């Protein structure tokens, strides 16, 4: 068993404590919102996961640019960690949005601009992850994935602009009993929301950093495997004195 660094345990404990505090605030401390009732508590999940999903896209874009500039594997690991975690948080944003929309707006789905944008981005980053799964590991995969990650990030503002135009052209059929109720975000609601955003951001950072660490270990395992699979070849080729060319040859189709 690999020893977990102490700092990570502290980080995990902090995340758990913060999440516990947030849950307590959401379900016990904050008063029930007058117009929407209990379903309004979705807000404290929906907004923070939406926020972290956006942060994830910015991280993927940043890491992709950094990778193309420096070609350092750490940026590629950051991009994967942010994309995988981001896709999960974007999925949660879509689900919490639908669960919240049904009782309030009367429909599971509307053409609301932020929902539409998140859905499209969700598809782009699922494709990004599928590409990484399909492509053999190596420098080429890292480079092409960075290009895809950047294309998705460049698309984000255009998608949002288009989705807003779309929303204006097709006023959504929100017919629910509470569709026109406005809820203000201040007082205890505002405080709870801020705490929830902080808690989910810390959770996101923790999960992404664990993924980053796992990714690093995966790379190390791959390196070791490659070294092992090359050993017999090395033994043979050293007698032929062509060690160098064999050692630099790709192993098992990985390049």
């Amino acid at each position, binding site marked *: 068993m690999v020893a977990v660094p102490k700092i990570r345990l502290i980080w995990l404990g902090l995340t758990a404590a913060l999440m516990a505090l947030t849950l307590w605030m959401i379900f016990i401390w904050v008063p029930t919102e007058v117009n929407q009732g209990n379903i309004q508590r979705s807000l404290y999940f929906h907004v923070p996961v939406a926020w972290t999903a956006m942060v994830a896209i910015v991280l993927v874009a940043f890491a992709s640019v950094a990778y193309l500039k420096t070609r350092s594997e750490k940026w590629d690991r950051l991009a994967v960690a942010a994309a995988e975690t981001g896709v999960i948080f974007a999925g949660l944003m879509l689900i919490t949005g639908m669960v919240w929309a049904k009782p309030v707006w009367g429909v599971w789905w509307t053409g609301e601009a932020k929902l539409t944008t998140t859905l499209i981005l969700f598809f782009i980053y699922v494709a990004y992850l599928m590409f990484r799964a399909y492509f053999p590991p190596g420098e080429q995969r890292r480079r*092409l994935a960075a290009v895809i990650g950047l294309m998705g990030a460049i698309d984000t503002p255009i998608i949002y602009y288009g989705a807003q135009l779309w929303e204006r052209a097709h006023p959504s059929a929100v017919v629910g009993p509470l569709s026109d109720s406005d809820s203000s975000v201040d007082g205890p609601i505002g405080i709870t929301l801020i705490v929830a955003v902080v808690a989910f951001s810390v959770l996101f950072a923790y999960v992404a950093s664990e993924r980053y660490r796992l990714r690093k270990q995966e790379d190390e395992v791959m390196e070791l495997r490659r070294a092992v699979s090359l050993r017999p070849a090395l033994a043979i080729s050293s007698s032929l004195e062509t060690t160098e060319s064999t050692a630099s040859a790709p192993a098992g189709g990985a390049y």
Partner: protein
Amino acid sequence: MGAALATVWTLARKDLLLELRSRDIVLAIVVFALLVITIFTFAIELTPSRSRDVGPGVLWAAVAFAGVLGINRSFAMEAEGDTLDGLMLTPVSRELIFFGKSLANFIFITVAEIVIFPVFEALFNINVLRIETIVIALLASIGFSAVGTAFAAVSVRVRSREIMLPLLFLPTVIPLIMAAVESTSVVVNGGSWSGFSAWLQLAIAFDVIFVIASAVLFQFVLEE
């Protein structure tokens, strides 16, 4: 500048000549798009008002689905003929290779649209052969070919590239599809210029941003 344009044209001409001899790509785009459109005439019972409601959406969905097939083909041919390395060895910058491939794909999609639009007009009984829709069609073809060329080069070496390219291409071009569908819809329903121009701007913005972004990023796609 002149030399660059000549290089782009030479690269595009290579693909056009191949296409003139095989007629693989344009024919595939046309037949597939018409098939999609035909299926929709059975899937939806077409009354005149319903045609105008759903027609633009069907038309652009068909063009997008068929276009991505054609673009996939243009790079698959390079990979199958092992000519991709030759292309990368040509002593011209990556941007010019990108523009050459994009230009060829743009011409393929546009030529296919010249056939698709009149048939669509006949089947759906809506007048799409007018100057506004031609402008939209050109803008859509520019965006499709730019994004499609970049992603086709990305996915050409992946196993099951036939699946990978649409998965990358379609969500990325959704804003352009939105713009094409909505502006066509405004035109065939006799909407206002302001309703049309907003979508036109979106299409132009998409094209400008993605032609530049794809050209710049292309050097990272075809490296070493």
